[in-house]
């Protein structure tokens, strides 16, 4: 199927413009259309829609959204089919470089040149970028061969090149775990995955399926303390860390390798958010949003990893549907749901999205815990709601469905989200 059908001519005004055609953008565009908005534009910088899914050639996607276990590109394809059924203008190879606060969008593409258009509402679905060596200041030399895991994934899966022959992976994020397996299958020696924290930061199923099944060692509470090599990486030094995460250099050891992959976390791509001067949440790195994912600038919505880092594409699609539908409503001038309840992270909660709730509609609250709790855990939404779950761990996002009924009588309040071991509750 040709999936890069460029619109014959760009309109000068759209109801809804969606920036980014990953799972968030694809889902938001469809939802906006289903809501009745007519002129919808979706823009992506890559030659094909799909975003980061296109380089995720492993399976495990779609169980919730499509009720089948598919690979990343297949997921993208299924999501794109929904877009193509609708009448959405899809523009690829195109960058949105600027958006002004009165929602004038500047686009650049080799096919269409540089143009500007106006939009009724805007959905930012530009995804995330990877944290780099600069973010964690690994001391040592600066040879070639230090690469983020996501860039390595792109090199291997999309372009057919290997990042090296003997690799060490720093950080146990999902991309790093997936790449440990991928590289092993490609014949690269993966000498180990090193994680600063006492627990893996990727999903449990990935630790089992990508490391344990391939006998790749995972060293917890251990980090890289030095990089050697004038030209290409020749050797790295790793060391255990103490309880304050300070490396114990006297216990360090060297590993000969030519490649160091970094899987040390994703950060929302807040470039447009910053340009638009949106209020940002320092905990997520993404914008502050209402229950319909509307940011502090009316008419601008955020969805996907650019709002907060998700662990599953399926969650992204669902969350973006709310954003897209509301973007459609706003473009059509419909009533906005009141945002009359505030939520904030409380005990053992790293962040909560969205930041406000409405007593007028149903919504989902998503959050991440700071420390794992490997037993019965009580989740609280202030005094409005509580729910018991079996366990919570930082890599896995926790969600709570919140109906208007639950919020009855809490209008104007601030609700704290807590995740507490059940035994502590009872004592």
């Amino acid at each position, binding site marked *: 199927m040709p999936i890069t059908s460029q619109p014959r001519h760009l309109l000068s005004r759209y109801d809804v413009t969606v920036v980014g055609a990953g799972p968030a953008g694809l889902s938001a565009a469809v939802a906006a259309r289903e809501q009745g908005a007519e002129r919808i534009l979706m823009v992506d910088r890559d030659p094909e829609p799909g975003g980061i899914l296109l380089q995720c050639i492993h399976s495990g996607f779609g169980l919730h959204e499509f009720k089948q276990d598919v690979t990343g590109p297949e997921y993208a394809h299924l999501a794109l089919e929904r877009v193509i059924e609708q009448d959405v203008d899809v523009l690829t190879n195109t960058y949105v470089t600027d958006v002004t606060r009165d929602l004038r969008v500047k686009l650049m593409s080799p096919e269409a040149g540089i143009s500007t258009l106006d939009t009724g509402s805007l959905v930012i679905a530009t995804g995330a970028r990877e944290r780099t060596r600069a973010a964690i200041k690994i001391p040592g030399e600066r040879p070639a061969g230090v690469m983020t895991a996501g860039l390595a994934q792109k090199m291997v899966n999309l372009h057919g090149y290997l990042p090296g022959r003997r690799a060490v992976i720093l950080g146990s994020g999902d991309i790093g775990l997936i790449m440990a397996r991928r590289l092993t299958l490609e014949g690269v020696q993966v000498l180990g995955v090193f994680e600063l924290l006492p627990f893996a930061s990727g999903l449990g199923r990935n630790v089992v399926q990508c490391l344990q099944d391939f006998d790749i060692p995972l060293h917890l509470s251990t980090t890289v303390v030095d990089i050697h090599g004038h030209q290409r990486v020749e050797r790295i030094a790793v060391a255990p860390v103490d309880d304050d995460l300070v490396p114990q250099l006297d216990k360090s050891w060297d590993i000969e390798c030519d490649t160091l992959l970094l899987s040390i976390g994703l950060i929302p791509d807040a*470039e447009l958010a910053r340009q638009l001067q949106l209020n940002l949440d320092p905990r997520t790195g993404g914008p502050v949003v209402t229950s319909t994912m509307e940011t502090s600038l009316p008419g601008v919505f955020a969805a996907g990893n650019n709002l907060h880092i998700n662990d599953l594409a399926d969650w992204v699609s669902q969350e973006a549907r709310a954003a897209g539908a509301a973007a459609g409503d706003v473009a059509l001038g419909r009533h906005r749901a009141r945002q009359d309840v505030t939520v904030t992270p409380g005990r053992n909660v790293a962040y909560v999205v969205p930041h406000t709730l409405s007593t007028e509609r149903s919504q989902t609250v998503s959050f991440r815990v700071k420390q794992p709790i490997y037993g019965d855990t009580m989740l609280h939404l202030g005094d409005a709601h509580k729910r018991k779950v079996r366990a919570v761990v930082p890599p896995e996002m926790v969600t709570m469905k919140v109906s208007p009924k639950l919020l009855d009588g809490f209008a104007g309040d601030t609700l704290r989200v807590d995740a507490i071991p059940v035994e502590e509750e009872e004592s």
Partner: protein
Amino acid sequence: MGDDRVWDVLIIGGGAVGATLARALSRFHLDVALLEWQAEVAFGVSKANSGIVHSAMHASPDTLKGKLEYPGNLGWRQLHDELGFGLNNVGEVLVALDDEQLVRIEEIRQQGIRKGIPGTQAWTAERTLDAQPNLTREVKGAVWAPTACVFNPYEAVMLVADAARRNGVTIAEEQRVVGIDPPDAEDPDAPLTVRTETDVWRGRFVVNAAGLFADDIAEFAGVRDFKILPRKGEEYLLDKRLSGIVTSIIFPCPSPISKGTLVNPTVDGTIMVGPTAQTVDDKFDTSTTEEGAAQVFTNARKLVPTISERDIIAEFAGLRPVSDTEDFIVGPTDRRGFINAAGIQSPGLTGAPALADLLVDILADEGLELDEKDHWDPTAPHPVKFNQLPTEEQQALARRDPRYAHLICRCEIITEAEVRDAMDRGAHTLDGLKFRTRVGMGRCQGGFCTWGCMQLLAEHQGITIPEVTKRGTGTWIVCDRDDHPVTTARNGG
């Protein structure tokens, strides 16, 4: 090269000194080649420094570096007009924090006046804080020197080398000089034979502009009268958020041994603090250290109290090629035809264009005939800085060449056309592209643009993707898949 060709001048080293000399010589009918060890020019000391064209009031007029400073300052401004690299005339504020320092900075100002530096002013504390409100309240007064500029030293040196090439100079990279043959006893006028790892070059004159390694090159020529003692300087770049916290180069009152820690805006709008000054043994030791950072930030906070380590976004260290005489070593040597331009420490960058003119005079004195070309072009098309243009101009460019509408680097807004232009001017490695255009210097540090750049580099040079390097031999980025047997998981998954 391998043939019998005899060059009029061989320049060893493609830093600020080598490149400005190459360009100065390019106006004459001469065969000139510049031999550079690294994959591209400006990958040595001239890449990692404060990037300041000094006001020229600091160095004593009794030293050679003091003499070259102001003409060098004027030289860079002219080169900026001719070639279009980034240079901002931001000026210098030299700050006194007590009465003793007030006296000292006025002495420096008077020295500047004697050297002919125009426009300096003595400022009261009030006037100083008016101009730079984020300075410490402790300031007692300052000297204002409008002549100081900030620039992109690597971009400047790369464009100067390119201008030399356009005017006929051969720029030969990955040519590490490993030896110079002894003089021919029969024929003392015979050209010098310079050997690199791969080639042999013969030149009537050889200029040693090899920066940190100038003592090794001099040894090869049998000249053993100085040593280069690398003096490390660590520099820290702060988040763009702090842009504007100071708008000129802020100098502390210098001590007898060092100019001290500066706080300055860069051409790209970030704030830089540094450098340290520490003598090291290893000419490759460009590591940054915790002690270095602590020292830089303690000192910087004495000038601008709100500056914090937390805002560091990048750091690097450079090594000043300091000679054991502490001054520049410039001139002919006992070895006929072999001329030194060594020990070029700070303000070596500033002085380089004037040093180049001086070297031309020295070469003439030594017998090089200078016959000016009729059609020497001092200018070159200025590189387009797309992200700094208004939308209408961007649109006009994109209509002419759609590659101006193809973004390669999102963080810095760099287009395919700019990357291609940089390659046409000699960039052939990822670092070469980065330093010329800023691709990959932004927030994502190349996560997005690396592949696009690699494709363009491969296409432009007719090489394969695995042959593309970060900065030359040995710095490969990816390799080909092997036909490895596929490993399977224990449980078949």
